[in-house]
Each structure stands twice: as C-alpha cells, then as structure tokens.
C-alpha cells in the first residue's frame, strides 16, 4: 500500500461524510485563518510603524528646551532657558558622531498667495534640516547654507500647502506672503503623510531660520538667537544612546548645571518612542498567536474525536484489510493520511477565510496586504502537523486492532 492509495482511500472516506468532515475541521479553519490574519496584521502594522519611524528621520535626536517650575508646577516645554544658536554650533562641533544639526523655530501663520490663504506651520530651519529628517524636495531646490547666512526670503512648501494655495499649478518660482513679508517659493517637499499622532506632516512651510527670526517671530523675542528645538543626525555607525549622553553632558556644561541637578532641557530619541508603540502591536500579535495555537489544539482534538469514531465505524474494514495482508503500518498510514487530509481541508478553508479577512482589514486600515506564500505554506504545514499529532492516536488504535476481533465486530 503506497501513499497515493492511502490518499485516495482517505479522500473517498471524507467525501462519504462530507458534512461531518467539514464541521470537524472548524477548529483548524479558525486556527489557520487566525495565523494568516495574525501575520498579515502584524507585518502590515509593523511596516506602517517602520514607515512612520522613517518619516521622522532615522538616527535622529531632538533636543527640547526644559520647562520651568513655578511653585512646583511645570509650565510646559520652552518655559525654561531656551536653546540657542550657540547650542547648535556646540553640538555640531563638539559631539562625536554628529553628521548634521539644525535648529527649528515654529510659528503658526497664514501663507497668502493672491486672494487665497492657508494657515499653516511656518518652520524656520537650518539648511541641514531636510537631510536630517530624510525629507528631500520633490521639485525645485533645497534650502542652502547661503539662504540661512543671508536671511533670504525663500520658502519651501509642503505638499498640503501646495495643494491648498496652488491647486495643481507649479508653485516653484511663485511669490507668496507670510505676515506681510514677500517670499519666493523655491521648492516643494515630498509627501510624508500623517505622523504617528495623526498630524498632517505635509502642512508646513520651511524658511531659513535667520529669516524667521528677523522677519516672522524675531522682534518679539527676548533672546535674538533663540532656537525652539534642535534636530541632530547621528552617524549610522555611532550609538544613539552614547550621542544622547554626550549632548546632555555638553548642554549641562554650557548651562553650568550643578552636579545632581536635573536637566533644564531634554534629549529625545523619537524612533525609540515609536518602537515602544510597536510593543502594543506585539502584545496583540501574541494574543492572536495564542488564539491560533488554542484553535489548532481544540481543532486537533476534534479531529482526534472524529477519527476515533471513524476507526470504530470501520473496524470490520480494518479487519478485512488486515486479513488480506495489510500490515499495521499500512493501516496506521491510512488513518494518519485521513486525519492529515481532514486538517488540510480545514487549512484550505482557513486560508480562504484568512486571506479574505486580511484583505478587508488591510483595506480598512490602509495597510499593505502582506499575505506571502511562505505564510500560507506555513499555515498549511501547521494544519498538517496538527493532523499528524492528533491523528496518530486513533491511527495507532486502528493499527493495533486484533484482526479477529475486528472482523467479528458488528
């Protein structure tokens, strides 16, 4: 008796009890479907998180000013000693592994073109900002060091701003006004989409930090070289944590913070924060994984149950097969193949449900559909393994029947 004969016998036996067979496989169906959904959701979500981390800029640290405390109550970021142009230069020159540094000051203001206007975030930055954020222009040119040095009235606009006030026209070279100051649009940024917090990152206008200080927000400020935040890009070979510590030490030194006192600023690794968010997703994945394992076990027990029934129902057939020369191994194989076929049937149904469900989830959550052939193969292999594990006991019982008793059974 070879494998193919066993498969034919098994398929025949399952076809005879088709409804029973399909109902029996329910646990396997759920198990396999949840494995597929689990992987699709897990990889889809983590690729989404990866995309968001990439959108932040990789290997990036952000320095925020600290908050002052009045009677023990925090007054919010930026209320303590502000960061300065000097801090930017110091970090650039003294911290090892630093590739680029850019300050940023932000202001909310309308940008006006002709009779249309759009209130957006005006961000004064250094020329390196685009490089640090991995945020190149789509058309036109980047901000240049010269723009910053000379306080040029040039602006690079985000995709959303371009759509709002240019509506399909080419913004590069066009004149706009921000707080009554004329600017020339020199570039349009590529789209970064939504941030992890749901903010539209493309709703932004970048101008040289010097211009921002002098023309947009500078006059009202106490300190002329004030910087809101500092973006620092670290060499990919350097350790972010080490660079973070170096920056902290440098700034403490510059601020003459006494030993043991708290920092009057904070250095944050935003991609670390993002990664922490993925842990929530990981926990969810574990839950789904547990669901699928439990389903496969419960499904396996269902398979075992029905196989025991099948062995009992077909005791005479087993006796006959033994009488005409079937060895124990032949009988074992026959019932094992039947259990595995049952599980593969459940696996196929599960794959169909799993793929449809992940496609729907991916569509609703706007994630890429990630159902790879390897996952489908793995899920089917898990189903087959369940068949082997839970089919072995009934198959062994069949194989060890006494041929005489089996032939005599009613």
């Amino acid at each position: 008796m070879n494998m193919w004969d066993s498969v034919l016998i098994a398929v025949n036996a399952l076809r005879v009890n088709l409804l029973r067979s399909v109902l029996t496989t329910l646990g396997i169906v759920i198990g396999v479907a949840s494995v597929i959904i689990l992987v699709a959701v897990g990889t889809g979500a983590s690729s989404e998180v990866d995309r968001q981390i990439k959108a932040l800029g990789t290997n990036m640290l952000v320095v925020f000013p600290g908050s002052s405390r009045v009677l023990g109550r925090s007054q919010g970021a930026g209320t303590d000693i502000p960061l300065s142009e000097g801090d930017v230069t110091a970090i650039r020159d003294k911290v090892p592994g630093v590739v680029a540094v850019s300050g940023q000051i932000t202001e909310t203001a309308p940008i006006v073109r002709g009779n249309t206007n759009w209130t957006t975030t005006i961000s004064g930055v250094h020329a390196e900002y685009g490089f640090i954020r991995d945020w190149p222009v789509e058309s036109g040119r980047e901000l240049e060091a010269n723009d910053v040095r000379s306080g040029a009235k040039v602006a690079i606009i985000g995709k959303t701003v371009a759509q709002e006030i240019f509506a399909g026209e080419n913004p590069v070279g066009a004149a706009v006004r921000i707080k009554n100051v004329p600017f020339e649009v020199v570039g349009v940024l590529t789209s970064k989409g939504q941030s992890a917090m749901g903010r539209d990152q493309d709703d932004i206008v970048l101008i040289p930090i010097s211009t921002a200080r002098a023309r947009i927000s500078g006059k009202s400020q106490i300190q002329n070289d004030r910087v809101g935040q500092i973006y620092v890009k670290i060499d990919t070979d350097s350790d972010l944590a080490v660079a973070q510590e170096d920056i902290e030490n440098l700034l403490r030194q510059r601020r003459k913070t006494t030993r043991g006192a708290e920092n009057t600023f904070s250095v944050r690794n935003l991609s670390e924060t993002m990664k922490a968010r993925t842990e929530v997703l990981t926990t969810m994945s574990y839950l789904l994984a547990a669901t699928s394992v439990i389903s496969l076990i419960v499904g396996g027990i269902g398979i075992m149950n029905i196989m025991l029934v099948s062995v009992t129902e077909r005791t005479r057939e087993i006796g006959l097969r033994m009488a005409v020369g079937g060895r124990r191994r032949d009988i074992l194989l026959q019932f094992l193949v039947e259990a595995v076929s049952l599980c593969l049937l459940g696996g196929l149904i599960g794959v169909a449900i799993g793929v449809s469900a992940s496609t729907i989830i991916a569509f609703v959550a706007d994630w890429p559909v990630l159902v790879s052939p390897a996952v489908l193969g793995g899920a089917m292999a898990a189903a087959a393994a369940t068949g082997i594990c839970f089919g072995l006991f009934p198959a062994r019982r069949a194989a060890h029947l006494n041929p005489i008793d089996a032939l005599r059974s009613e």
Partner: protein
Amino acid sequence: MTVIERSPSSVPGREGASSATPLISARDLSKIYRVGEQDLVALDKVSLDIAAGDFVAIMGPSGSGKSTMMNLIGALDVPTSGNLVIDGRDIGSLSADELADLRNRSIGFVFQQFNLLPRTSALKQVMLPLLYAHPRPENMEEMARRRLEQVGLASRMDHTPRQLSGGQQQRVAIARAIVNNPKILLADEPTGALDTKTSEEIMQVFTALNREGITVVLVTHEPEIALWAGRRITFRDGRIIDDVRQTPITAAAPPPAGGQPQ
C-alpha cells in the same frame, strides 16, 4: 478455465497430495483464552495435517474450537502452545508483519458476511489484496479482471456491493480471495447468508477452484455443505472427534464455475 500457475515443488496433483509434505501441519496445537479468572481451553492439543490440493470441511457446534482452528489456519492468530506450519512457515515464530505477508501470499479468505468494502466497485474490491502485496504486481487490474471473469462476473466489474445480489457479492469475495494465487482458500460459513440454490452455485465455484489445485478449507455447521468436501473433520470441546474421507457429491459433476451463463 485458467490453470493457476505454481512452482513445480508445490504442484501436487490430487493423487500426489498425500505423499508430499502437508501444506498445513498442526502438532499438539493449543489455544487458551483467559476469561476473567478462568482459562478457557478453545483448542486442546490438536494435531492435524492437510495436504495440498485437499478439500476439507471442518464441522462442529459453536464453542467446539472450529473457529479458533480456522483463525490459526488463517494466520490471524497465534497458538498458545504447539506448532502450526502453514506453507512452510511456523506461524508461532512470525511477527505481525510476517503474518500479514503470509496471509497476503498464501491464504485467501471468504466470510459469511462477504466483508466487501461499501461504495467500492467489484474490480477495486478484488484488487485490494494486490495493493498490500510485496512486491506489488504490475498488472493488478488485469489480474483482478481475470478472477472476476473466472467467477462469472465479467459484466459486473463496476458494480458496488449494493448493486449486487448476495450470491454475486460472495463471488466478488471469492475472486478477491484468489486474486493473489494463494495456496489455501479459507471459507468461514460462506453460504451462511445465502439461499439453498445460491449456496449450491457458490459450492460449485469452490469445487472448480479446488480442481485447479487450490486447497479449500471450509468451516460450516451445515452437513449438506460439508458433503461437497472430500474430507470431513469434526471438532468438539477443542478436540477432533471425527476425521473421515468421503466422496464429494460433485465428484461426477462437470466443472461449473467457468461455464456459468453470463
């Protein structure tokens, strides 16, 4: 009618049967079943030789040991003590797999309830023992067809048991039993579920097969069925109480199996 091919050493004409080594040889064969605290002696030191080519009827009331004897001769069971040599193999010394192979190669079974597989064509039924053969023959389907023709079912090859009469089902079972050219055909009450006329037809098939040289061992409690055999052995209380040669009632009749009208 096809003559079953055999190697020369084991081709006994009916005349030469008695002088050759017996095909089945039992010496002091005992089988004891343990039922609760008690030992039940089903076979009590039975010695028996059956020559190749013989047609033997085993009779006796239920509980006489004839079924136990049948199970042992069929290599379905092993004795508690004593020796049983079937076709040169001492079955007490064989493993489960070796017993399975011996059954496959040397013994064909026919049962009272036919024991056909449900929803399976006659041709597939007859091929079943060939699927378990080592090595497996090349022309399985051809072999099965030939046997079905031999028992007069050439036009019923694709019928499932449900589409066949009792007599036809038993013929399928006989074709299955002989498809692998066994030396022994073991029939356990083969006519028990059939009417008199059909029983007679089935006995004619056995007689024809016996004339080709196959050894037939028939277990029955019906005296008129035992009359078809050339030797009648009677069991009681686990022992042989009678062992006689007789003239089979069909000795003069023409061989019927191949001549069945289709």
